[in-house]
């Protein structure tokens, strides 16, 4: 029996013990090597072993914890989901490979998909037998989803997809990709898009890793050249893609945000530890900046809790943008703080990048991918000041 079938009946303390015991018992043996791996800037590490670890998690029922029971999930409360993240972070669980499916696609299918689609796609996500990647950003669309140029045409029983996507993390691992493609060139920009589910293992798809400023490749370019998918693999109607996709973007926040913050807290702890060694901690000016980073992290948490607790919010529809504009620059500053904690030796890279350097370099992307700071500000300004023509 999965470890978590009865969780709605558990107290938070009991649930926490269940999680902790399970992780302690299972993140052992070959999986012990995964502790601390696969985080930001390290997504390329240990892929095979991490896939097996995902299946271990899935078999025990830890994937889809927050999905409704009707959708094959466990119906865990928000608090329980947060507890899972906390314990997972505490033990140093490796970076997740299932999260695109679990936190982005699955909620989309639950909200916008058909019963058949949910039956077909959710169980393999929960079992970690199928992995997903996200096909949104394009080289000529940047953060502007409405400018997506990848085309899909209906051809009998299939859609044929042609175009190029970027920022596609884990594309080389994924079995499926959820793709935003233009199916009606004549419709207004946002109305001509459709949301397609496309299998990755086919001749019409080529995945090219992009080497990043870290020298590693978490992200890929994905080239679609007449790639096919069955006609029924569309979420919503043709032309609904914008609505469905921005619905998915909204799911990026919420519980996953709290989980992300646990990773941030671990990074900040590490920065303090480094500073104690280097002497930066004894510099009142450095420490003032570091404490401000700590203050910022608490504020991220307060913001996430308030957003979860008051879904109506003050700025309905743009909380995800507020959250991104809070955490991405904060994380970037943490990277800078980490470098100043290390001091001049942060300019050396013997034996590869240090944790501080990886954080520093990798966080440059935080303010770009998933809707750049500029796009997020546009979204908030549209809400406050009304939409106007761009530029």
């Amino acid at each position: 029996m999965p470890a978590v079938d009865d969780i709605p009946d558990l107290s938070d303390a009991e649930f926490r013990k269940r999680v902790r015991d399970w992780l302690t018992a299972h993140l052992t043996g070959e999986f012990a090597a995964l502790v601390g791996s696969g985080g930001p800037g390290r997504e390329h590490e240990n892929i095979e072993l991490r896939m097996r670890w995902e299946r271990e998690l899935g078999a025990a029922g830890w994937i889809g914890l927050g999905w409704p029971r009707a959708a094959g999930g466990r119906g865990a409360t928000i608090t329980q989901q947060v507890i899972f993240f906390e314990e997972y972070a505490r033990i140093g669980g490796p970076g997740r490979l299932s999260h695109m499916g679990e936190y982005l696609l699955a909620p989309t299918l639950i909200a916008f998909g058909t019963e058949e689609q949910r039956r077909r796609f959710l169980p393999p996500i929960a079992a970690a037998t199928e992995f997903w990647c996200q096909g949104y950003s394009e080289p000529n669309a940047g953060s502007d989803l409405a400018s997506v140029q990848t085309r899909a045409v209906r051809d009998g029983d299939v859609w044929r997809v042609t175009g190029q996507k970027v920022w596609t993390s884990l594309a080389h691992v994924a079995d499926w990709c959820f793709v935003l493609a233009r199916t009606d060139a004549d419709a207004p920009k946002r109305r001509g898009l459709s949301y397609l589910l496309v299998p990755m293992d086919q001749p019409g798809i080529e995945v090219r890793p992009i080497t990043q400023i870290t020298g590693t490749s978490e992200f890929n370019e994905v080239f679609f050249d007449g790639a096919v998918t069955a006609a029924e693999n569309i979420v919503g109607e043709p032309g609904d893609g914008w609505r469905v996709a921005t619905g998915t973007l909204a799911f990026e926040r919420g519980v996953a945000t709290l989980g992300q913050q646990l990773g941030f807290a671990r990074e900040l702890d590490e920065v303090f530890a480094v500073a104690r060694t280097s002497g930066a901690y004894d510099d009142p000016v450095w420490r003032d900046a570091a404490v401000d980073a700590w203050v910022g992290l608490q504020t991220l948490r307060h913001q996430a809790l308030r957003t979860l607790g008051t879904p109506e919010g003050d700025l309905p529809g743009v909380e995800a943008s507020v959250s991104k504009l809070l955490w991405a620059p904060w994380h970037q500053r943490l990277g800078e703080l980490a470098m100043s904690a290390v001091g001049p030796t942060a300019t050396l890279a013997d034996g590869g990048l240090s944790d501080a350097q990886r954080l520093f370099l990798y966080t440059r992307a935080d303010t770009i991918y998933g809707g750049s700071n500029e796009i997020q500000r546009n979204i908030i300004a549209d809400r406050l000041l009304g939409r106007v023509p761009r530029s």
Partner: protein
Amino acid sequence: MEFGFTTEQTDLRDTVRTFLARHATSARVRAADGFDATLWRRLAGELGVTALAIDEKHGGFGASEVEVGIVLEEAGRVLLPAPYLSTVVAAAAVDPALGADLLPGLADGSVIAALALAEPGAGWTPDRWSCTARRGGDGYVLDGVKEHVLDGAVADMVVVAAVCGGEPGLYAVRAEDVRRTPHDTLDPTRRQARLEFDGAAASLVGRDVRRAVDLLWAALAVESVGVARASLELTVDYLKTRQQFGVPLAHFQALRHRVADLAVAVEAATSSAWYALRVAGTEEFAIAAPLAKLVATRAAYAVTAESIQLHGALGFTWEHDAHLHFKRATANRLLLGDEVALRRVIAARAGL
């Protein structure tokens, strides 16, 4: 933890907002010189907001910090020229086991109270205060000087932090037993006073001085959220109507992005201020309160300063309200610990 508001709480907010929009107009705030006695009487009498957090057995409504916070945020929006913050924070600092007799007057608003913490030259830092209490008369006798007492010149009663035989405590003193020197202030909508105690008769009303400071921090935080929100709304309205180069300023992307950043700061400040109020009864308050004060006053300062900039020449005039928001935000930021001082408190309490 609960972050939403109940229907009753939302109704309270609406009632207070409607009342203040009608009665705490800019003209009236400007005319009040920091204290509009009529407004105060109606707030306490008609709306009963002074009674919110006081227990029913002491004449209050037995609600919580959340209800008080709702009123404080609304008070911040209009720069309320009435001693609401001072009175409710002083009341919250009173331990009912020690000062129950004070509470009915505070609940019905017949008694205006102020909390006296900071001292000249020692600022808000408790371990540098030198105000002392000693046994005498029917209870205690107080000696020392307090500074920056908000609404101190109009208070009927002052709750004073003092040390008695090495033990910090909170002592109630009647205004007539205090020498009060009202200050002119940078923020013309809230006055401060210097209070001198020279053998003043006092009664012990609380022992938790740290919590009194925390309460004041949290109150200033949520009030500052109100100041920031009002200032941001004023700015947004202005940008939507004012034309330049033939289009409304609201069309200019550079300004749009700055407004977006301000909105983000206000959202974060709201979250941290309300978090502090929600944990006011737990150990977390010791960190959440100074943190909220830091985050909210910083946001209010940023918003109100940008508001002047975005209003252009108009924002620099006495006639426009932008400077009133800015001055309140400035005062709330500098009083009782600036950002650097608050970070030191937070670091110490969080063991950073």
